[in-house]
C-alpha cells in the first residue's frame, strides 16, 4: 500500500523507491567486491601465513606428532593434560607473569621519567637518539652483548671489583634468583628508548591551554602533572603499556640467547619453553599445545587492553 502511494506520487521518469534500493544494493555489492579485490592480496597473505599456521598448530596440538612421526595420529587432549601435569609449565608460566608484570609497569614508568627529563632540554633530539639506539639492534645481538656484560669477568663484575664491592660480584645469569631480573634489565635497556619516544610524542602533542589555566589557578607542578598531564596522556600510556606487555610476554630471542643454558630451563618463559619442547626435544605436538595456550593468553591480554583503549577513546 505504502509502496503504491510512493509510486503514484513520484513524477514520471523517476525510478521507483524499490528500483533505487535495488540499484543501491547492486552498487553496494559492487563496492564490496571491489574492496575485496583490493584487500585480496593482504587477505591471502594473512590467510596463508597467519591463519593457516594457527589452524594447523591447533590441529597439531591434538595429535601425537613427535620427531619423525605421529602427525596423523589423534591424541585428543593428551598434550594439554601433559601440560597441566608438568611442573615446568607452571614455573614457566609464573616466570612469564613476572615478565608481564615487569613489562606492564617498568618500561612505561622509566620511559615517562626519561621523557619528562628530556622534554624541552637543549639537545632533546640528541638524547632521544641516544636512548633510542638500543632499539635499533636485534634482540639476539643485545642478548649476546649483555651475556658478556654479565659474565664472570664482564663489565658489571669488573666495575664492582674496581670500586671495592667485590662481594657484590655475581654469576648474574647462573643464579636462580638473579637471572630473570638480569634479563629484564637488559630488556628494559632495549625497550625504554621506544617508550620514551612514544611518550615524548604524546607529551608534545598535549594541548597547552588546560596546563596554562591550571598554572594560573596556582596549581603546583605535581598537581598539574597528576590532574592535567597524566589524564591527557592516558591514551598514549595505554599504547605504550600494550606494546611493552606484548613485547615482554612474547620475549623470546633475548631469553633464548641469555638463558637457554641455565640448568633445568629455570629462566625460560612459556614462549622459550615451547621452542625448547619442539625444536630441541622434538615433541612437536606438545610444543603446539603450549603455543595454543600462549596464543590464548596473549590474545586475551591484547583484547582487554584494546577494550580499555576503546573506553578511554569514548571518554
Amino acid at each position, binding site marked *: 500500500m505504502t509502496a503504491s502511494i510512493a509510486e503514484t506520487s513520484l513524477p514520471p521518469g523517476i525510478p521507483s523507491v524499490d528500483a533505487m534500493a535495488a540499484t543501491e544494493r547492486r552498487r553496494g555489492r559492487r563496492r564490496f567486491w571491489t574492496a575485496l579485490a583490493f584487500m585480496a592480496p593482504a587477505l591471502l597473505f594473512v590467510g596463508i601465513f597467519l591463519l593457516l599456521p594457527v589452524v594447523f598448530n591447533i590441529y597439531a596440538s591434538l595429535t601425537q606428532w613427535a620427531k*619423525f612421526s605421529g602427525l596423523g595420529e589423534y591424541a585428543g587432549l593428551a598434550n594439554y593434560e601433559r601440560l597441566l601435569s608438568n611442573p615446568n609449565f607452571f614455573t614457566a608460566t609464573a616466570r612469564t607473569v613476572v615478565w608481564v608484570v615487569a613489562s606492564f609497569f617498568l618500561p612505561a614508568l622509566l620511559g615517562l621519567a626519561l621523557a619528562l627529563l628530556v622534554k624541552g632540554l637543549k639537545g632533546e633530539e640528541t638524547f632521544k637518539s641516544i636512548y633510542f639506539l638500543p632499539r635499533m639492534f636485534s634482540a639476539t645481538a643485545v642478548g649476546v652483548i649483555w651475556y658478556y656484560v654479565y659474565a664472570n669477568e664482564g663489565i658489571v663484575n669488573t666495575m664492582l671489583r674496581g670500586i671495592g664491592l667485590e662481594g657484590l660480584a655475581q654469576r648474574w645469569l647462573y643464579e636462580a634468583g638473579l637471572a630473570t631480573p638480569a634479563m629484564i634489565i637488559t630488556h628494559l635497556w632495549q625497550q625504554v628508548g621506544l617508550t620514551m619516544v612514544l611518550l615524548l610524542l604524546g607529551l608534545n602533542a598535549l594541548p597547552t591551554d588546560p596546563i596554562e589555566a591550571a598554572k594560573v589557578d596556582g596549581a603546583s607542578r605535581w598537581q598539574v602533572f597528576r590532574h592535567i598531564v597524566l589524564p591527557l596522556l592516558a591514551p598514549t600510556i595505554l599504547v605504550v603499556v600494550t606494546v611493552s606487555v606484548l613485547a615482554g610476554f612474547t620475549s623470546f630471542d633475548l631469553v633464548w640467547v641469555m638463558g*637457554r643454558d641455565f640448568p633445568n630451563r629455570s629462566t625460560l618463559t612459556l614462549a622459550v619453553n615451547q621452542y625448547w619442547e619442539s625444536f630441541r*626435544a622434538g615433541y612437536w605436538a606438545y610444543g603446539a599445545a603450549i603455543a595454543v595456550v600462549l596464543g590464548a593468553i596473549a590474545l586475551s591480554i591484547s583484547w582487554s587492553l584494546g577494550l580499555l583503549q576503546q573506553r578511554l577513546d569514548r571518554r
Partner: protein
Amino acid sequence: MNMIQKLAAAALAGAALAAAGGAHAQTVTVYHDKPFYQAGWDGLTAAAKEAGIDLQFSAYTTDQFQAFIQSGLMSGDAPDAFTWWNGTKLEEIVESGQIAPLDDLWAEKIAAGEYDASAAEPFKVDGHIYGMPTGINRWVVMYNKELFEKAGIESVPTTWEELMAACEKLKAADIIPFNASIQEGWRGFVWFEELLIRTDPDAYVALNEGKLKYTDEPVRRVFEIWNDLYAKGYFTDPASQEEQLDFARGKAAMYLAGDWNIGLIEAGGLKPGEDFGAFIMPNVDPDVPNVVIVEASPLLISTAGAQKPEVMEFAKWYLSSDAMNAWATTPGLYAGNLKAKVPNEIIGQIADSAAKGNYRSMTRYWEASPSEIVLPAVEEMNRFMTDPSMETAETAMNNIEAIASQYWASRQ
C-alpha cells in the same frame, strides 16, 4: 638432408649434450650442524671439484638442523645427504624408513683395505650399515704441557692416584686442574659418563639400557666422586662460553673432551703434540676393564638421495682416502680411513694407547641413552655443575630416575 632434418638433429644433439653436461653439473648438497668445521667442509668442496663432483654444504644450528631434518622426513622430502648422530638417535631415524643402507659401499671399501670392519660398527642398525663417518673420536683428557711443567708434574698420570696427585700439585701452583663448562647446554653428561665408565663400565651399559636406576649405588658413587672434585676446587667456572679457548688460554691444565676438539684448540693457539698432549683417563678402580668413550658421527644418505647417481657417486668418493685427507687434515679430525693421513700426532698416540691397553669402545651417553632421558638428565647434570653439592646430586638422581622409569615402563 633438408633444413628441418638438420635443425631437428642439431636440437637433439644439443639436448643430449645438455643432459650429459647437466648430469655432471648436478650439485650434491650436504646439510650439517657443524659450522665450526668450516675449514674441513671447504677442503672437501675443493677436493670434490677436482674429482668432478659439484658439492656444497649447508650449515644450521643444532636445534634448527634437527627440526629441519625431522620436518623434511615427516613430509617425505628428506634431504639427499646430511650429518646425524649414532646410537639411539640413528635407530630412531632409520625407523622412519627413509635412510638408505650402505652395506655394498662399505663391503667394497673394507675389501679394498681402506677401512677396518669395526669402523662401520657404530653405524649398524639391525645388521645394516647406515651412514659414513665424519668422525670417529675418542673422549680423552688433553693436558697443557707448560702448566704441567710449571706444577712439577713429570709424567702423564697413568693411575687415578697419580691423576689426583697431579691435581694437588696444580692446585698448589695456583692452577685449576680441569676445564669444564655447560656451554650450549649439552655438556653436563661428559664428566658423569667418564666417571661411571672409570668406576663401573657395566653399570654404564645397564643404565643406558634401563637395567639400572639413576638412584642406584654406581650412579651415587659417581656423584660422590664428582662432588668431591668440585669441593677440592678442581674445576673452572661452568658458566664459560668458550670452553676450547679457555683451555688454549691456560685457564685450566686439563680438559676432558672429544679429540675433535684438537683442531679447535689449535685454532686457539696451542700446537698439538708440542704445547698439549692427551691421555685416556685412568680408571678410578684399577680392576675395572679398560674402556673408552667413542663418538662416531655419521653422514647419512636418504633413500631419495640413493636414487640419484650423483649422490651415490659422492658417497663412494667421500669414503676414499683422498676425500678423507681433504676433510680430516684441516680441522684435525680422523674418520677411520686406514689409507688416509692421521691428522695430528695426538690422535696417533691415543690410537696406540687404546690398542695397547685393549680398550673397548663405548658409545657416548648422548647417543647411547634414549633422548627422552638424555635431555632432561643433562639439564640435571648441568644444574649439579653450577651448584655442586650432594643435595643437588640427590635431587638430580631422583628427578632423572622419575623420567627414566616412566620412559622404560612405557616401552614395555
